[in-house]
């Protein structure tokens, strides 16, 4: 779209936010996004106008009033002009007031969830997001139905994180010791990036996940399938799913690669050297102990930083993870 058509759209009050995001914005996929995009573009074109005015006048003056042979001296002009100065104070004041009121109004809408919202609990911790659904299912991705208001109630296990979905134009700091709240209503089926926007240490830039927006009925089908996977899938496959969903994969690789924690490739059934120099065989009991009391037997060469999963993983889940580890040869 050319600049003039855009400006005309703007003047007509009919700026349609571009669902692809256009040059400046990411894809728009929530009811809140177009409201933010319209204001963004209003400020943008206002800024372009004032910038062109200032820089245009500056360039014009430099060209016209350049000191050159035959034009050594300035021409007389007043040192101040009350009418001009009042004008360039009052007009910007009125314009910023418009931006202020508009921004506040959209902000309130972005912060006021409808009463019938579907609630998901969000936990941020170094360096993963976990989503707990009303039925108790925990997932590493945020699955939601389309066209449904979703309310997020968020807590942090350690430092400050910030839950950010660019496609929804929402962001909220997740401060330890407080509940942070956010809401959105997705308008397009698809997968959207989630970032952590508040710096939280080594893995900050890898603390991403996805929002998966399902078509009508799709969310319910997905939930029925995943809610019971422990009983339906073979234990090793269920273990693999837990391994990814519960954040184990954030620190442990399964291909022998280096990470925060030791790789789990070829560990099960073999001897492991501990930080205190002793050696232990990695059997079911060792795996179970390492999950529930991670600091009890730390592998040599690694920091004792793993959090306990006591109360977070059920026995059946721990068994499944141990079964999965057996397959990592």
């Amino acid at each position, binding site marked *: 779209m050319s600049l003039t058509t855009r400006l005309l759209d703007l003047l007509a009050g009919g700026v349609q936010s571009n669902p692809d995001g256009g040059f400046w914005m990411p894809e728009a996929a929530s009811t809140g996004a177009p409201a933010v995009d319209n204001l963004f573009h209003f400020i943008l074109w206002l800024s372009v106008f004032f910038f062109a005015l200032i820089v245009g006048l500056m360039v014009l003056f430099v060209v016209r009033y350049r000191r050159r042979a035959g034009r050594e001296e300035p021409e007389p002009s007043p040192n101040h002009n009350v009418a001009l100065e009042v004008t360039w104070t009052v007009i910007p004041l009125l314009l910023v007031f418009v931006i202020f009121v508009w921004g*506040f109004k959209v902000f309130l809408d972005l912060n006021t969830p409808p009463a019938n919202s579907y609630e998901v609990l969000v936990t941020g911790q170094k360096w993963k997001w976990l989503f707990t659904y009303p039925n108790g299912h925990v997932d590493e991705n945020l699955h939601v139905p389309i066209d449904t208001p979703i309310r997020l109630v968020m807590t942090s296990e350690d430092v400050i994180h910030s839950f950010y979905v660019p496609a929804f134009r929402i962001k909220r700091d997740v401060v330890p010791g407080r509940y942070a709240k956010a809401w959105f209503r997705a308008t397009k089926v698809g997968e959207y990036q989630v970032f952590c926007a508040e710096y939280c*240490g080594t893995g900050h830039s890898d603390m991403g996940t996805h929002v998966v927006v399902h078509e009508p009925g799709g969310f319910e089908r997905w939930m029925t399938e995943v809610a019971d996977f422990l009983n339906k899938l073979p234990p090793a496959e269920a273990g693999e799913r837990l391994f990814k969903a519960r954040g184990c994969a954030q620190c442990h690789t399964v291909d022998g690669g280096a990470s925060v924690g030791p790789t789990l490739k070829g560990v099960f059934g073999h001897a492991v050297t501990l930080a205190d120099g002793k050696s232990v065989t990695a059997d079911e009991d060792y795996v179970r102990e390492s999950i529930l009391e991670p600091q009890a037997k730390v592998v040599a060469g690694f920091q004792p930083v793993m959090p306990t999963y006591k109360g977070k993983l059920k026995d059946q889940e721990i068994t499944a993870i141990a079964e999965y580890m057996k397959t990592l040869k």
Partner: protein
Amino acid sequence: MADKGTAASLVTGNALAGDNYLNHTKGLRSWLFTLDHKRIGVMYLVSILASFLLGGIFALLMRTSLLSPTKHIVSADTYNQMFTLHGAIMIFLFIIPGIPAALGNIVLPLMLGAKDVAFPRLNLASYYCWVAGAIFSLLSIVLGAVDTGWTFYTPYSTTTNTSVVAMTFGALILGFSSIFTGLNFIVTIHKLRPKGMGWFRMPLFVWGLYGTAIIQVLATPVLGITLLLLIVERTLGVGIFDPALGGDPVLYQHFFWFYSHPAVYIMILPAMGVISETVSVFSRKHIFGYKAIAFSSIAIAAISFLVWGHHMFVSGQSNLAGMIFSFLTFLVAIPSAIKVFNWVATMYKGAIRLDTPMLYVMSFLFLFGIGGLTGLFLGSLAVDVHLHDTYFVVAHFHYVMFGGTVIAFLGGLHYWWPKFTGRMYDEAWGRIAAVLVFVGFNATFFSQFVMGSKGMPRRYYNYLPEYQIYHQISTIGSFVMGIGFIIIAVYLIRSLIAGKPAPANPWGGATLEWQTTSPPPHDNFALSPEAGDPYDLEAFRWDAAVGGYVKKSDAAVAVG
């Protein structure tokens, strides 16, 4: 130079051959224990430029690492330490003392026609506080480089195992250095103005320094207390900010920004002062709207204390607080806009000289224009939610602080360079470097606006491939800028040895510092000068025999 004799210097006003502040006393001790504001200013200048070099090296390393989304030249932890060091060094060691303590120290007493600042010993103490603070801050690199970001947000900063205490203790001492300078300048401006200089006869650079000094004295103690509380929490385990100990991390953010937002104006106000001086001198025009510019400096200083909450729109503060801070933020934009309009109006019907300092003025108006206007996006609550903590903020901040303050600092450095070194730099190279820095800067940071509004969060070591093109443009731009700065360093250093001797008034400024020799004598002025209108530029005319400007009334005498 000695063979040229004193006769030449009487005509041009160059004092390299005779007695000046640089050769008035000799030896290392005469510098280390000097109470001369010009020497202290020069020591500050050398020190902050060394800090700028160090901070710049970290920046270029980061940009190089970000060329690829996945392949890196450093580890994630090293990257985190580098952006922390880049920020902390640039903010606390370079840009806060940059214009006031280095250029301001050299120029302020000269502009007032005074022999020195009000408290010369306090001035030297300020410098050594800076040195001590710098040592503590940089010691942290050896003890375990801090990885918190320059904002030291809790509870990350109270739980990380890096040497946060050394770094914050360093920043605490640096705060004293800043307070001493501010206090000194307030008293100097109140008490040492010359005959004929009422408040509205002060050069606007002095107004800028005055506004800055007020903020330095009133806001810096809050930072000191905050960092002290952080140290107490870390070392003694007293719960103030850490929720695990019963504290509140958002309280830290309030305390931190209560200083650090006004601090942004500590950085920009003196820069605006430099622009007010140079735009007028190089347009050969009286400044337009003197009183409006002077009052807007004070308005900015006052309102800047009330806007800190706009750093916390997504922190969970109440909607009411968000609304009030957003409103006040828009209010503080107005005085800055007024200044910009006045500067452009000053150029109207002038006789504009496009020397290096004027190129920096134009560069400033372009870049600070973008920096200021993009602040409107961030001040607007709903839009800020999307842009907060993305590269958009990084770009906005650099357009204001680098495109504004650093560019004005460079303009001021070139403008006053002949005065305090007694030498002219190479004008052709000066213009080439100014253009390179301008082009490189825009490539580096404009691309960051786009990736930021597209969602790229800041302080990321890895990123999604869709952002790579913007990162690559940004990195190439930073290399161009780096080349520009190398050129500046080379021709400035070279000018110290081979530069043409500078006349007393090479640009035709009407402020008092141009009425003494270049470089000035130890006591600044042979006779206490009397101040007139600091922007009465038409009282001066170019004199080819002098190679500089002379007062029209004195011209006959000087040529004769």
